[in-house]
């Protein structure tokens, strides 16, 4: 347990020491999205009758920030440890692969949640957002952060170089998050793209998360919970198996 807590604390300290880059900067980025999209689209788009577009944007932006930062935390920490060689200190230690996974994912989720909270707080200056079902907000925030933190561990283990990690981020994570209903409802999409969106697990995270704010969503939050929960379990099982085998970590 002390090994797990130490690794968790180390991972939290790692991002906290560069908090401007890891927490403050993503908050500013999300705020810019809010300002630009709400300015351009507020008068043209209305997704739900009683929800202004700017307010509609907030949950999506918060969730997108949680997901992207959770992924960035575990993946960048692991690749950095591998490239500098300092990963050896964790591999030499009597830390189980489960504790290793849990520490990286918990720290990643925490960074995601901190950024998400920051985004939410700064958006309050621009729009009011209802909190209809806070428990759904919490559940999807935690599950989303943990799931992308887990995906970050996979990417960090798999990538040998920073550009491989960047490819993972730019060709998988970014499209999945941007094409998930952050800026729109999938009901506004043509049928084909609406169907495609239903295969994107990030859509369910954002839709379920948004349900917590407005009690309105494209699909039932229970369905979203089931999809996200199954994806999280599958990704976690894959990550644990990779760590157990020492894939790309032990020769």
């Amino acid at each position, binding site marked *: 347990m*002390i090994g797990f807590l*130490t690794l968790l*604390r*180390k991972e939290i*300290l790692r991002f906290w020491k560069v908090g401007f880059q890891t927490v403050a900067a993503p908050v500013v980025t999300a705020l810019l999205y809010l300002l630009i999209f709400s300015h351009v689209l507020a008068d043209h788009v209305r997704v739900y009758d009683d929800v202004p577009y700017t307010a509609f944007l907030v949950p999506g932006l918060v969730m997108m920030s949680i997901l992207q930062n959770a992924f960035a935390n575990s993946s960048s920490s692991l690749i950095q440890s591998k490239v500098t060689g300092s990963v*050896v200190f964790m591999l030499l230690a*009597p830390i189980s692969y489960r504790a290793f996974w849990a520490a990286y994912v918990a720290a990643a989720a925490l960074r995601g949640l901190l950024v998400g909270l920051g985004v939410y707080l700064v958006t309050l200056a621009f729009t009011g957002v209802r909190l209809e079902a806070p428990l759904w907000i919490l559940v999807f925030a935690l599950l989303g952060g943990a799931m992308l933190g887990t995906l970050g561990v996979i990417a960090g283990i798999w990538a040998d170089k920073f550009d491989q990690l960047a490819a993972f981020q730019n060709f998988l994570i970014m499209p999945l998050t941007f094409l998930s209903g952050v800026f729109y409802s999938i009901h506004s999409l043509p049928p084909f793209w609406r169907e495609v969106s239903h295969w994107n697990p990030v859509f369910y995270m954002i839709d379920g998360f948004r349900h917590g704010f407005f009690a309105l969503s494209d699909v039932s939050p229970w369905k979203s919970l089931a999809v996200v929960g199954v994806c999280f379990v599958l990704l976690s099982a894959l990550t644990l198996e990779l760590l157990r085998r020492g894939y790309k970590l032990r*020769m």
Partner: protein
Amino acid sequence: MSPAIRVAGVAKRFGATQALAGIDLEVAEGEFFGLLGPNGAGKTTLISALAGLVRPDSGHLEVMGHDVQADYRQARLKLGVVPQELVFDPFFSVRQTLRIQSGYYGIRRNDDWIDEILANLDLTGKAEANMRSLSGGMKRRVLVAQALAHKPPVIVLDEPTAGVDVELRQGLWRFIRRLNGEGHTIVLTTHYLEEAEAECGRIAMMKSGRIVALDTTANLLRRFGDGTTNLEDAFMRVMKEAV
């Protein structure tokens, strides 16, 4: 009583390269043991297998009676390794690095021992310095300190004095000798053969993944010398004669 280290029939191949070709070796508790060989002989692979960083294709390894794969937690608790590469985490100070290292091994409040290690390795003045700001020699000392943070009974030093100045080298050996005197088993790999000759009671010489000579230092000097021979001469002769 089980030996500090037991290596039985360990083989490892990386592609076409046979890194370890069936190593059998035992190191008794309290020994100061040398593992010598030219680059590529398999020393670091053997150490990595002992530390669980490399999984052998066959054979098994134990540290203080604990199998390094099946009983990895206990085996790793008993082992401290100073890696050959100068690796460090750039986010932390020396003291934070050692606290984190202690925590990895389940030790919470370890500052008394950390202070003692820092003093013995002449690092007290750098305790709060960030790892990035240290010279190569200083970083090497921190690597030694990290390996000692959990007071392991078996300490493996893979080229611990590479790039370290003479004064520190002497201080380091005094400290290691003291630990050995207190019962810690020391395994050393080095290219400074005069250090191995001075410190090690027994030596294994490796070539191409095999142990080609294994004996006490005195016997090796006797067998491969003429009475005035130093370890370097003996080493050269062993390597020449080994097929």
